[in-house]
């Protein structure tokens, strides 16, 4: 599907002020599916995503895409747990990633309107982004991440503070994106969401990959005691 993959991660470590946030990680991600990263709070889910995306410092090891680094950079997007709203209208927020790439203004605005419809924000294109509700903000952030038609979309707990309806709307958008070939790599603490979206699961614990494999076998019979405990809802350290 995409010549970005396979993504090879070898002994990758990210530290901050001397403290290991995540790693060392060894991992190979293939071109298809939706990878869901799960694990207890503080396990390093966010740090892993940020390290893979390249916005957290890689202190040791290697992360290799199957294409030159700068090209790989251009073909991925990231949705943050707390979406960043540019202090502009919804339309201008959506158009921003295209404008940065040099897309002519009229073209960018047209695509922005198109994406506003797709993520269900067609009614709000002229509103300032800062007045949107939590669910609307996350939809806007996802639309803004998808407008560049990335090959990979990272999402860091995109539904962590949303109600059921907003969560379903966002999952719909994500499933459509996945169906159209966008590789999703997302973290979540909602096991229901993980079951609904994941084609493979990455269970991390203490900054390291603890278990990694296809989703169905994982949810039916985890290999490790810690993963079993985590799925039961026990506290895992």
């Amino acid at each position, binding site marked *: 599907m995409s010549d970005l993959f396979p993504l090879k991660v070898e002994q990758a470590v990210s530290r901050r002020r001397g403290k290991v946030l995540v790693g060392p990680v060894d991992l190979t991600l293939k071109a298809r599916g939706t990878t869901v990263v799960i694990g207890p709070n503080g396990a390093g889910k966010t740090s892993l995503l940020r390290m893979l*995306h390249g*916005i957290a410092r890689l202190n040791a090891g290697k992360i290799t895409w199957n294409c030159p680094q700068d090209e790989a*950079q*251009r073909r991925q*997007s*990231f949705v*943050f747990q707390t979406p*960043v709203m*540019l*202090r*502009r209208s919804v339309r201008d927020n959506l158009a*921003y*990633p295209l404008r*940065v790439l040099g897309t002519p203004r009229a073209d960018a605005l047209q695509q922005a309107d198109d994406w506003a419809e797709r993520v269900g924000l067609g009614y709000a294109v002229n509103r*300032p982004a*800062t*007045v949107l509700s939590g669910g609307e903000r996350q939809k806007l952030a996802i639309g803004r991440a998808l407008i560049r038609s990335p090959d990979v979309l990272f999402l860091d707990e995109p539904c962590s503070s949303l109600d059921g309806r907003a969560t379903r709307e966002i999952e719909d958008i994500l499933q459509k994106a996945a169906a159209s070939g966008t590789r999703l790599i997302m973290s979540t603490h909602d096991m229901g969401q993980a079951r609904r979206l994941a084609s493979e699961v990455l269970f991390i614990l203490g900054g390291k990959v603890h278990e990694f494999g296809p989703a169905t076998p994982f949810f039916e019979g985890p290999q490790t005691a810690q993963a079993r405990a985590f799925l039961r809802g026990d506290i895992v350290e």
Partner: protein
Amino acid sequence: MTDLWDGLSRAFFLLVSLDADLVEITLRSLRVTLTALLIASLIALPFGALLAVRRFRFRRTTIAVLNALMGLPPVVVGLIVYVFLSRSGPFGVFGLLFTPTAMIIAQIIIIVPLIASIAHQALRELWSDYHDLLISMNTTHIQRIQTLLWDGRRALLTAALAGFGRAIGEVGAIMVVGGNIDHHTRVLTTAIALETGKGEFAMALALGFILIGLAILVNIAIHWLTQTEREGRW
């Protein structure tokens, strides 16, 4: 107290009669300060944004120096500019001393640190908000600065208006480099100093009231032009 009332009534009379000298020095005040403000903003705003987005070696020192320069005594700036522009100084050949241009230069030097410092304070917060997103989108430094300047324009307007306030009310530096020449470099503040020197307090106060009114008017006009209060929020 009587001086105050005299001043108010004088100011009123000068205004309704559109006194020719008053109109002239008021327009000159505006011309000098608005030109200085424009140029200073073109320098200071991108510089403030650069300080927010770039991590370079002497960044902290630069910010500290900038904050210190905010309190730059205008009369010292005036003297330094004077020495540079004097016929026997390094830029003497341009013959700029005692011209409106010299006053503009002095005002630029006085307000650039102020505007840059306030701009940096405002944009630093915006940058901490935008940081992850703009890094993630692979934006260039120039694009980051452009984005901050555009999205932070309301806060930057406040920075510019602070600069305007300091420049229009400044007297020490422009007295030294402008010379307060009648019909040439006399502006509201130097005229006030002159009238005070003559003991004409009522006239000095009248000009003072007009200066205050002008500052308020310009603030309102700029806010109106940019519609700061209407859209609210940012």
